[in-house]
């Protein structure tokens, strides 16, 4: 097997530099790559373009990067729940491109599947369609949307092996597995890193060929955005 293991988060992110485009997995705060985000914050890498469904909250997730003004542009489907984000956006410090959530997912998948672009009906008749190519198939209009082209995809998995195979838990899979396929370099942090042969080949969500670096993360906080319980 080809060994993808790196020693730690510092080694994993060593060549991320100012101005890079990063995909960051997660939905809300669920399944976000906490260790990599912390290391990027600590390294103060600047002018990043971040492709991520959300932008974290004020003091967690991508919010930590925003707080340090490390992000030049966000490409997301939903960026609520973040006052600092709003301030930077209104002041012009931050650029944001809002795209439909499915389009976000498909543009990742297209990159991982070698498709240069895909057709989606999402956004037809709305401002999302402005300037984009529209094509009718079988009586229905679709937008042509290009595959993403990101320097790095940074994802968080539940289990992984040193061959780079990943397994995600419950809804923390979300964008993690589609982004894992889509980075020029894919970095995976996992809660549990095992030797090849431990994980069932039948249950792998992301085959190791898509993953370039893997390390065992630590101190996962897994903050819950909206804890809702049945009394």
């Amino acid at each position, binding site marked *: 097997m080809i060994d993808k293991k790196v020693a730690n988060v510092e080694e994993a992110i060593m060549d991320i530099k100012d101005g890079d485009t990063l995909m960051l997995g997660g939905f809300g705060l*669920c399944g976000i790559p906490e260790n990599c985000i912390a290391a990027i914050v600590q390294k103060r890498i600047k002018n990043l373009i971040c492709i991520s469904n959300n932008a974290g909250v004020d003091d967690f997730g991508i919010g930590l990067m925003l707080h340090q003004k490390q992000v030049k542009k966000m490409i997301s489907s939903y960026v609520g729940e973040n006052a600092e984000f709003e301030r930077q956006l209104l002041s012009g410090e931050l650029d944001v491109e809002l795209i439909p959530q499915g389009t976000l997912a498909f543009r990742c998948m297209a990159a991982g599947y070698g498709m240069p672009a895909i057709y989606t*009906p999402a956004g037809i*008749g709305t401002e999302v369609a402005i300037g984009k190519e529209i094509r009718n198939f079988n009586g229905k209009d679709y937008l042509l949307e290009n595959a993403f082209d990101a320097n790095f995809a940074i994802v968080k998995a539940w289990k992984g092996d040193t061959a780079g195979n990943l397994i995600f838990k419950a*809804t923390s*899979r979300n964008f993690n597995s589609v982004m894992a396929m889509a980075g020029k370099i894919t970095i995976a942090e996992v809660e549990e890193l095992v030797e090849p042969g431990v994980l069932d080949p039948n249950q792998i969500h992301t085959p190791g060929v898509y993953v370039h670096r893997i390390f065992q993360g630590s101190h996962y906080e897994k*903050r819950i955005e909206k804890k*809702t319980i*049945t009394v």
Partner: protein
Amino acid sequence: MLDKEGIAKRIAQEIQNNSYVNLGIGIPTLVANYIPKHIHVCFQSENGLLGMGPFPKESEVDPDLINAGKQTITMLPGAAIFDSAMSFGMIHAQKIDLTILGAMEVSEMGDIANWKIPGKMVKGMGGAMDLVASAKNIIVAMQHVNKAGESKLLPSCTLPLTGIRCVKKIVTELAVLSVLPEGGFQLLERAPGVSVDTIKKATLGKLIIEGDIPEMAFN
């Protein structure tokens, strides 16, 4: 006049047996509480889950298991997890039978605006544009008028659109209305104690009233 729970309860009656349903944030989420026992329904959450169950007990809370509203949830027996691409794949392939979502405005052509108010901070469309572009059946749950007292059922939307010609039915605190393919809101039912006249005054778009309009029935 209905409260939010009443709107949810009325919409729950619309759910067909053996259907896959996606519930938006807000009133639509409440619909799950009023599904009749004999109706089998499977809820999809577009962040990657089919078979969403009720909110967890304190001891069951799992940060890795949330719905599209970012609330902690549970899974029912027979649930399935998938990634965001497959989730929107099944939405676009029309495997989801019904989408219930909120709106700021609906036009008499079935256009919907529910994501952006010019001049205000825009949070984003999330999965709404995907859902309205593809769902076979879309029911909007909303107030009939906005806080300024202006009708939200319009000849055409004034706010930026989320999708076009997609809303099939609207349930408000005042009425149930269907959107006709040729345009227009056909009044189907009045909320308890609400007159046709009240609905007329609250509806700016073309309102079609044919024969007697029954009051909603709840059991």
